[in-house]
């Protein structure tokens, strides 16, 4: 490094200081605090032993399962949507289409989930229509189960997935698709051989953004989920609110965090995905 660069570098460290300090103070330091609390008192592994008992193992697996399942559904739905907006939509409607599909991302998820209660409740829209048209004799219980919770999750996180995936879908050269078609490839082949591999970084970035938040969600399962199926967030909130068992809640948080990072796995570490995330 030349001498002339030294003041520039010092200035750059100063500029980096404020966001970095915030991220360290509110991201790294709290995680360390939790880790210390999870080991204590007395360096015993009791908290961790309790977390791994069958009762909490169930909640951990259920949370991870919900995260994986909902993320998968979002990706499956986002593929045709982003494909249509990027390659089929007439140019002048493209911005409107993109804005309409991603608008709920700006709205409050507590409110949006609450709105679904009105759609799925016994006197709600769906039951009214089904009974009113004579398709059903009496109302169905559509609320407070895995399906209603899944709908609530997809409703909130689909716009995030669409927006993130759109970037790589737009970059996909449509001429490749046309060339494949001219050579006789079917839609399925085009999707598997061209669209999928080229948009994988976008899908990975989208997964990175929504998966952890779904697995660790609190409000959606409280509003739309079954009271019997406990996700991790409720256990942590309970421990926190009742001012007890911080060590246990911290251990639970840590095991959960490791599971989430583990399932995100190597994909998140690949430079391709990181580049994608930065571009987004």
């Amino acid at each position, binding site marked *: 490094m030349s001498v002339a660069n030294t003041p520039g570098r010092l200035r750059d460290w100063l500029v980096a200081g404020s966001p970095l300090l915030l991220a360290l103070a509110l991201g790294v330091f709290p995680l360390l605090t939790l880790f210390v609390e999870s080991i204590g008192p007395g360096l015993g592994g009791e908290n961790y032993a309790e977390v791994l008992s069958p009762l909490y193992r169930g909640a951990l697996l259920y949370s991870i399962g919900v995260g994986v399942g909902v993320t998968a559904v979002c990706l499956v739905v986002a593929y045709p949507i982003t494909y249509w907006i990027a390659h089929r939509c007439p140019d002048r409607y493209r911005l409107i289409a993109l804005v309409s599909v991603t608008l709920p991302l700006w709205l409050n998820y507590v409110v949006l989930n609450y709105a679904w209660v*009105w759609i799925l409740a016994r006197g709600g829209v769906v039951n009214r229509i089904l009974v009113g048209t004579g398709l059903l004799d009496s109302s169905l219980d559509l609320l407070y189960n895995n399906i209603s919770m899944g709908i609530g999750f997809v409703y909130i996180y689909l716009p995030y997935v669409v927006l993130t995936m759109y970037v790589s879908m737009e970059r996909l050269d449509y001429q490749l698709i046309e060339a494949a078609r001219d050579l006789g490839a079917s839609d399925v082949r085009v999707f598997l051989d061209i669209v999928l591999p080229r948009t994988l970084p976008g899908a990975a970035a989208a997964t990175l953004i929504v998966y952890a938040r779904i697995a660790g969600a609190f409000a959606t399962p409280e509003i739309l989920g079954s009271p019997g199926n406990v996700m991790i967030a409720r256990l942590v909130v309970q421990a926190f609110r009742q001012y007890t068992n911080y060590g246990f809640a911290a251990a639970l948080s840590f095991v959960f965090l490791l599971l989430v990072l583990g399932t995100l796995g190597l994909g998140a570490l690949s430079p391709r995905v990181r580049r994608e995330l930065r571009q987004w």
Partner: protein
Amino acid sequence: MVSRVTRLAERGAGRLPGIVVALTLVFLYTPVLVIGYLSLSPAGQPTIPIDAFSLRWYTAVLTDTRFIRALLTSLGIGVVTATGGTALGLAGAYVIVRSQLPQLARRSIAVIIALPLFVPTVVVAFGIGRASALVGLGYGYLPVILGHLFWVLPFTTFLIAARYAELDNRLSAAARDLGADDRTVFRTITVPLLWPALMASVLFAFALSFNEFLITFFLAGSSVTTVPLEIFGKVRIGATAFLNAASVLVIVVSAVAAGVASTLRRPV
């Protein structure tokens, strides 16, 4: 026979994306429309279809002092978070995209800033709550605002960084050749060119903060109430008619921010 089935399937597959988009729009907007429709019912427990039209519950919400105080708190925290988060995001974007720091340092800073994206929010919120108690900061406005700043930082940083990376370096170089110092270049070249991204970042950070629930839930304590906390409490006690009108008002506030931001999306 087989070929006909295949052909039908192929044609179906060709139309599939368009159909999915149409269904998604119905899926996304039906709940919002239903809430808007129900909010106009005068009944305390509205039924579908509603009996009459009335703005009674809007009046009730807008004269409810608890709700108004929560609304003002949310707006205040939102404005502070939006401006502060964008300033920090600009610094973060500069460091990641343009600074002279070593590659490894820039990458590490990007990963640390992105932390709230891949660490479950409940773990982040619980951790901040415990850390705040540990250093004696406790609960209240300051922890909530810091939590919100931390939460919006990855969004503002990467939003601004995307635009920063597209800026033509030669413009700054030309200004420097003409004798401008770094500060002048930043003020007269960089900021104006980044302006649409900065405004989009302000609006998005405002919407994120205005709608944030879980971090606030952990850090607010008993003295601070924001709109999402207020609404979550009302959902639990089943105050339906009040909730419908309040929900519509909350949606309108964020939709206005979204509308303004989307007109900025066309780059200069």
